């Protein structure tokens, strides 16, 4: 073969020498653009109708007593937290790991991991905001009675919306972080159910936990989401109906030829004491952590924001090591 030595100018050989390339800002715009295109081409928009369906199902089951009674509120708020966590997890659990090899290639070509993760954060925030709006709309359509007091913004619905958004987004960032740590979609989908169960079991409100297990609840998104919702619902001033309902069921019970429960209920109804009894029952079941104060709500939001920042930083940290991936 003939030797093809070709003389090039100095400039050709040092085309990139000492020349600045696009920094984090423009790279963030590139990746955000890519992700927004994915919304259309990769059918990411499907998460919005999915959120509507899930919200409708939950409303159908627990919507009647949500924000009306203590039990219904606790159950309903737990279900709403679950919706948020479910939506958040599914938004991002695969988004990074499925293109890990591409990230490795682009990192080699000068991509800044922080720009990439920041683009994902903004994109996921848009998705979570969309899901929050859809969920709230479904709640309205299903005639869920929202709380009438606002602790922060002055508009109760906005307070609830912020809580739903922050809970969804914190869960989203948690799964984004998992997606950055794991190397395949299979691993991500294997880890996800465990995370989900951990979040639900250690939500700290619905399941009775003690001692060390109770400490774990502080590290779950579910706990702060649930606490924020119960705080906004003014849980502690709601009536408790469990005892009354149980007594209703036992109305016909006879003791030594008499029906004391029936008589008691009759007296209570005659003297219009039902509400009073329900509130008295509730008094004994109030929970300090659900106190309807602005500080309490802001504390919950702060914790969720802390999770968001922490998870996204960990995602950046994990991805910085993408070059170590083997072929």
């Amino acid at each position, binding site marked *: *073969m003939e*030797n*093809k*030595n*070709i*003389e*090039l100018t100095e400039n*050709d*050989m*040092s*085309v*990139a*020498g*000492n*020349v*600045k*390339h*696009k*920094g984090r800002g*423009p*790279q963030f715009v*590139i990746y955000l*653009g*890519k992700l927004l*295109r*994915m919304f259309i*081409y*990769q059918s990411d928009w499907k998460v919005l109708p999915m959120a509507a369906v899930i919200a409708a199902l939950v409303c159908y089951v627990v919507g009647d007593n949500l924000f009306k009674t203590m039990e219904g509120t606790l159950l309903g708020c737990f279900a709403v937290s679950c919706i948020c966590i479910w939506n958040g997890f599914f938004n991002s659990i695969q988004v990074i790991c499925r*293109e890990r*090899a*591409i990230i*490795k*290639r*682009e990192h*080699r*070509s*000068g*991509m800044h991991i922080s720009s990439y993760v920041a683009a994902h954060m903004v994109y996921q925030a848009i998705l979570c905001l969309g899901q929050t709006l859809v969920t709230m709309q479904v709640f309205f359509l299903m005639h869920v009675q929202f709380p009438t007091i606002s602790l922060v913004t002055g508009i109760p619905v906005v307070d609830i919306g912020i809580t739903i958004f922050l809970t969804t987004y914190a869960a989203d960032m948690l799964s984004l972080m998992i997606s950055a740590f794991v190397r395949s979609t299979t691993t991500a989908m294997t880890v996800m159910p465990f995370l989900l169960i951990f979040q639900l079991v250690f939500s700290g409100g619905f399941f009775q936990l*003690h*001692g*060390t*297990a109770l400490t774990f609840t502080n590290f779950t998104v579910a706990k702060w989401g649930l606490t924020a919702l119960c705080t906004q619902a003014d849980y502690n001033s709601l009536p408790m109906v469990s005892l009354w309902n149980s007594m209703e069921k036992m109305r016909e019970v006879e003791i030594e030829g008499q029906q004391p429960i029936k008589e008691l209920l009759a007296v209570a109804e005659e003297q219009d004491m039902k509400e009073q009894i329900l509130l008295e029952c509730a008094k004994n079941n109030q929970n300090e952590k659900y106190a309807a104060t602005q500080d309490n709500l802001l504390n919950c939001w702060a914790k969720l924001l802390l999770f968001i920042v922490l998870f996204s930083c960990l995602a950046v940290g994990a991805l910085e090591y993408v*070059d170590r991936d083997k*072929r």
Partner: protein
Amino acid sequence: MTIMDIIGSDVFRRVFFYLLSAVGLYGILKKCGKKPWQAFIPLLRYYYLAAAVKKEKEGRVYVLLTVFQLAIDYMTDLIQKGNPDPVNDRNYLLFVALGLVVVLCLMLYVIRIDAAICEKFGKRKRWIWLLEFAEGITYIYFGWSKKVQPVITDEEETEGARVSGAVIDVMKDGLTVNIEKRTAKVQYKERVLLKDIHLAIPKGHMVLLLGGSGAGKTTFLNAVTGYEKADANIMLGGRDLYREYESMKYDVGFVPQQDLVRLNDNVRLTLADAATLRLPGNISRKEREKRVNEVLEEFGLAPLAGTLVEKLSGGQRKRLSIAMEYISNPSLFILDEPDSGLDGVVARGLFEKLRDIADQGKIVIVITHTPDRVIDLFDDVIVLAKDVDRTGRLAFYGTVDESYRFFDKTGMEQILRSINQKDEGGEGRATEFVERYAGKLMPAEG
């Protein structure tokens, strides 16, 4: 307290069995060529033992699990002290359940390590029982009996092919590679992946990188591009690539084997984004668009500009993948099996395109597993081979014709067969050629 009380005490029993095992382990580690004093380090000694019998990963997990188990024991003790009826305590039960899981895992790892000890000393698997239930005595037997000796494998016994020690003079208009060695930690143990590779490629050359599986082709390319730095000196156009990596990385185009492009984006936007990332920041949008259009035309992608990547054929996708690197007009262009999955005609077309790129004054290095069908397009060939240490070594660098003469073969695939190991269906002559080529380089040093 009488002597019998001391002998019967729990502490004495623990210390006695600990020392018994340690004495045995001392002998085992010594026989395996490891530091024998490590046998006395609590806990970690099992890691060293596992490492000595080539089960480092298991040893590591064993140590971690043991630490975990100790933590669980501590927690259960704590709960027991604070609660007279711990059986009804949920936390206690949780830790007990966790402890059981850890113990089961520990047993599994101990069996794995014991099996490796038996294998190392050429003993049957039934010895695992003795290692398990009479650990100290069995360790002493393995460690101190002259009848029991570790089996030395061929790999452990041999030494690598000789090293040339040459250093190639820097070629101002080209790529100069002087790799002393490239090492990597494999399970906490340093392993030499590449050694003694010295060559200089002039501008405008298209070079074939040939080597069997595991010969270190990709490792070599990663070292040359500065992506995974080696103990080396890599000069591109008179500039030190390692020292100026951050600015020079844009001057090196690396096209990976897989088409790592996002499928749900269209061709033009994929290239435009690549251009924004790779081209200098001071280039205007107009110039960037012009460059994108040029590259689209050059790679025959202009008619497909608006098409989604997932709709492209294999060949079109490969061209796009190459175009993404080519867009920054790099001086050094490296392609890892660009023809994989392409039919002969499409592959030939692709290599002709690469020849055009080389003719523009670029250095093009290509790995391919079907070299003979396109060998007429190449100027030079680099042959990498595994020596007896399984280290990637340079078996040849020169023109295609010289390579035929050096290996006394008429085709690249024949050359590959001659350097491949016998268990890979080759002739197993890698060390011979590595040494012969090293010998050729040696006089050049003087």
